[in-house]
């Protein structure tokens, strides 16, 4: 399919010169922890996202990686204002989203869409595919006539590789990979400019993941889409992202062009993360240098002071690491790292060493503690 999904595609009228489509500044999302029988007292905050700066250029793909609890999903939702940010700014094509009223925000959603991780739970099981795809069009008044809407839907189905007879079917009649395509079609049918993909392939079988990744690739090329791909699978992200950001406990610890990051990871956490990813090649597996981290991820309700990674960092130093939070600074062109000792570690002057294991309690350990995200509608 070489033409856009429908006539008035916004991307065709804008210059794709790599100007930033999305700018995030100092974004934080704190969830209150409440405790109490009758009246909820706020006893603390889960700092899911704690001051993130990033920029995504139009037409590019930004990959956000990290393990569970690092806040990447929350960041993705906060950017789309599906979770209200506690502070910070999100500018989409020049428009500040955090202060937008309910109605303008709703209208803006046409231009920024989301693909979810679990295609089964993100599709209403009682809606057939035609209804799923039409809903977005009706919500925004796209398509002057029924025939026009049907045309848009038909072309979208084509674009994601679903057959036309899928329209009368229900989600549970499809396989996982097909359901994910339906999710993609639902996002595409509005003609968005930005798509936030939250773990788009992790719920799929290995051999299907490649299908969907390729599809996303091709759609970007033909439609000029901008992606924010959130994933924990480093290898998959490497494959499709132009710029990759690594998150740990709510902050970005490293950000670089995809090739640069994988060629020379500078942050200790990134290095540990990459060395932990299994590679389907016995010789590589035997030879590789493993950096094993001790213990668990600290609780986001009680993050370590100073550098958040200092409790597990193999290169931790007695100065600065425990009390001073490192800023994300550009150490190489286009390569930002949040660490106090980047050059020393990279040059090998500082050597890694063993750490003691610190046990961490999961967040919801104590009784009658409620952590509830507010969904902003």
């Amino acid at each position, binding site marked *: *399919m*070489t033409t856009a999904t429908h006539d008035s595609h916004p991307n065709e009228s804008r210059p794709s010169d790599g100007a930033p489509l999305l700018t995030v500044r100092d974004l934080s999302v704190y969830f209150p922890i409440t405790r109490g029988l009758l009246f909820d007292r706020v006893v603390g905050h889960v700092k899911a996202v704690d001051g993130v700066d990033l920029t995504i250029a139009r037409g590019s793909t930004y990959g956000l990686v990290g393990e569970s609890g690092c806040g990447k999903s929350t960041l993705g939702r906060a950017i*789309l204002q*599906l979770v209200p940010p506690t502070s910070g700014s999100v500018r989409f094509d020049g428009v500040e989203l955090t202060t937008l009223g309910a109605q303008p925000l*709703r*209208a803006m*959603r*046409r231009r920024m*869409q*989301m693909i*979810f991780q*679990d295609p089964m*739970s*993100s*599709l*209403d*099981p*009682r*809606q*057939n*595919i035609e209804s799923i795809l039409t*809903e*977005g069009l009706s*919500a*925004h008044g796209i398509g002057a006539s029924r025939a026009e809407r049907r045309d848009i839907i038909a072309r979208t189905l*084509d*674009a*994601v*590789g*679903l*057959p036309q*007879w899928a329209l*009368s*079917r*229900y989600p*549970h*009649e499809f396989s996982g990979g097909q359901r994910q395509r339906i*999710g993609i079609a*639902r996002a595409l049918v*509005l003609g968005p400019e930005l798509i936030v993909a939250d773990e788009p392939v992790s719920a799929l079988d290995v051999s299907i993941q490649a*299908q969907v990744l*390729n*599809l996303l*690739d*091709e*759609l970007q*090329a*033909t439609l000029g889409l901008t992606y924010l791909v959130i994933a924990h699978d480093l290898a998959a992200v490497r494959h499709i992202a132009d710029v990759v950001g690594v998150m740990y406990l709510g902050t970005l610890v490293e950000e670089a062009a995809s090739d640069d990051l994988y060629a020379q990871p500078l942050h200790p956490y990134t290095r540990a993360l990459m060395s932990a990813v299994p590679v389907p090649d016995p010789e590589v597996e035997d030879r590789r240098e493993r950096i094993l981290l001790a213990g668990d991820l600290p609780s986001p309700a009680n993050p370590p002071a100073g550098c958040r990674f200092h409790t597990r960092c193999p290169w931790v130093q007695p100065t600065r690491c425990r009390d001073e939070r490192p800023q994300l600074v550009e150490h190489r062109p286009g390569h930002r790292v949040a660490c106090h000792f980047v050059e020393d570690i990279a040059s090998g002057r500082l050597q890694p060493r063993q750490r003691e294991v610190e046990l961490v309690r999961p967040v919801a350990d104590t009784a009658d503690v409620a952590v509830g995200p*507010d*969904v*902003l*509608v």
Partner: protein
Amino acid sequence: MSVLSPGRKVEKLDRLAELAAASADGRGVSLWREAARRLRRNPSAIAGAVILGIFVLIAAIGPFFVPYGPTETIGVANGEVRPAAGIIPGPSAEHWLGYDHLGRDEFSRMVVGARQTLLVGVVATLIGMTVGCLIGGIAGAAHGLGGRWGRRVDTVLMRIVDMMLALPSLLLAISIAALLGPSLATVMIAVGAIAVPIFARLLRGSMIAQANAEYVLAATALGVRKRRIALGHILPNSLAPVLVQMTLTLATAIIEAAALSFLGLGNPDPSTPEWGKMLSDAQRYLEISPGLAIYPAIAIIITAFGFTLLGEAMREALDPKLRA
């Protein structure tokens, strides 16, 4: 990166794979249809439906075929029934279930009574379900979609419902009777009122659970209006437990209505037969003619049983875990 005409390439590979797969024609099978299919195969459902079918049939057309009118006091007129002397004839060739204490044909009264009893049960349940679902639906939608203010609305509504629950149902019924005077409507309203909190909490809980589902978030992300999300997404997916509860409430409503009639809160007019009232009237004559109490009691039990069977079968059929 990639080449043009991706859609075609992708389509071709998928088509190739679809060789051994499902049919390309035919309509989709919605979850309701699947549930209906499961229901049809369930023996409990069939049994329940048969029982209920029989009763509904009796209620609908029975009265046209009864041998005697339900209010004709034949037995007294021809002297066969003398309750004061302790004589109430039981089943015989002309009167299959015998006479009642006023000389009326018990069998005819039972058949005609079916209509009244079922009516009471159905109307009471409808009252309870409508009011309860209205309250619960608003509370649930407000909580799930309304943000801070929505949650406050929900709290207020639920406290009202809690107060209704705190009142003993009997007390509630008697109060309503005191207000409205004993009548059929009173019984219906009273039984309905007892059911309101049940439906309210049920629907509210179900809707809150669905409001947290990811497809609701997806609809929000799509830009769908809140009202459409509530009515088009959350509500349909929250109905299953309500439907099951409806059948179970029908069963208990009939029994509760009978109890209230038994206590004298129902229709004081003795002419229209109703099983609960018949049970109530029969208590004075238990020694002379126990059948007068047994027949309505068994009829009530079997009807309630039919609803319960159907309700349990519906619960199984609508169970989301059994989805493909």
